[in-house]
């Protein structure tokens, strides 16, 4: 065999190659390519499914998020309303109680004033009676006779210049 034989064809060797290749093709198809390609396809499908699911869930969650945002906004509004109302009520109540206290104080003052007035009147009356009595006594001592109350009254009226 020389170098010139390097491109001479040999049917036996070609047949050898084809047989070896076909056997290899059969074995690898059965034990390698089928499971590998199936695994690849499975993985691709599962990734596709995962992406699809993720997209779906993202959409869902964005809807939920909007809903929650709206809910939170509503709750905030409500809360601020409640607070405002409470503040208003508080202010009103404060005003009312102030007014009431003021009124009550006023009433107490009025009551106290009228009481004082009454007491004064009573005291004045008693004083007047006392003075009349004392005057009567003094007058009776002076006149030497008992002056009754009625006399006395009359005398006073006369002295005062009134007829009634």
């Amino acid at each position: 065999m020389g170098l010139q034989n390097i491109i001479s064809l040999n049917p036996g060797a070609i047949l050898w190659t084809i047989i070896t290749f076909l056997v290899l093709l059969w074995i690898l198809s059965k034990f390698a390519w089928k499971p590998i390609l199936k695994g690849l396809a499975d993985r691709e499908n599962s990734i596709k499914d995962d992406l699809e699911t993720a997209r779906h869930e993202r959409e869902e969650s964005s809807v939920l998020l909007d809903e929650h945002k709206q809910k939170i906004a509503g709750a905030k509004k409500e809360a601020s309303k409640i607070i405002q109302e409470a503040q208003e009520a508080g202010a009103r109540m404060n005003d009312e109680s102030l007014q009431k206290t003021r009124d009550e104080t006023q009433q107490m003052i009025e009551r106290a004033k009228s009481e004082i007035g009454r007491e004064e009147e009573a005291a004045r009356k008693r004083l007047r009676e006392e003075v009349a009595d004392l005057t009567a006594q003094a007058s009776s001592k002076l006149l030497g006779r008992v002056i009754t109350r009625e006399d006395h009254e009359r005398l006073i009226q006369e002295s005062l210049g009134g007829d009634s």
Partner: protein
Amino acid sequence: MNFIHGFTKTFFKFPNLTLIALLCLFVSTYPVQGSEETKHEAEGASAAVVHTLEHHLLDAPDYEIFGLHIPLPTLHVAGLTLQVTKHMLMMVIAAILLILLITTAFRKRQVVPHGLANFFEVIVVFLRDEVVRPNMGEEGDRFLPYFLTLFFFILFGNLMGLVPWGASPTGNINVTAGLALLTLLLMIVMGIVENGPIGYLKTFIPPGVPVFVMPIIIPIEIIGLFIKPFALTMRLFANMLGGHAVVAAFLGLIVTPIIAPLSIAGAVAISMLEIFVGFLQAYIFVMLSAVFIGMSMHPSH
């Protein structure tokens, strides 16, 4: 002792460089022995180089290891003489290696592949998405096992030549011719299956060609059908043969140990290139097979 100490120190600092240097030392002894052997058989340096080239590139009916010639059997089947040769042996070893590697890599099903399984899967996905589908469409998936087997068979065949005591079966024209014949067969069979026998014959008549050119065009088309697998055969065979010839030539240049480092450096560089060429040629063979089969299935494209 000082030398050994220095060596170990260098080894741990530059393991790759040291290994290459050792390799140079080891390999440089080989051609010297070879040339000594050939002194008895042939005269002159050119005869030695031819012998070395023959030894490295040619097929042989026996397998040589450590100077031992192991004869390989001859089978007689149906009137055909099937001589088991070095390249045939290498081809079978490559096929067995391929089966073992792939089944080991994918022994346990894993969702996320790693290691060897990743390597195989990257190539499988590449061939499917970049080679078969663009040329044959989704229906090309049926032929994926064929193209995948073809690619890995050629790749392993190419790389076998870079293994010590190995040889490239794809550097043998019979092997590449066998593979190209299978592609030719698929071209014709799939062309007939897809277009019908008459439809397939019509594909040899290109549309819009004047009648008087037909006698020239039709033979050209028919010859073209056989030129395609012929080109496949010669491209792969010549690439592999050429690469090994260059490596062998580099090593054959060593006549004194002084030239050895330079020659070894050249041989190492060419061997690295050979790894790349091994992948590239396997890809080209599969790529063109897919293009040719796809074209004969859908001639309008």
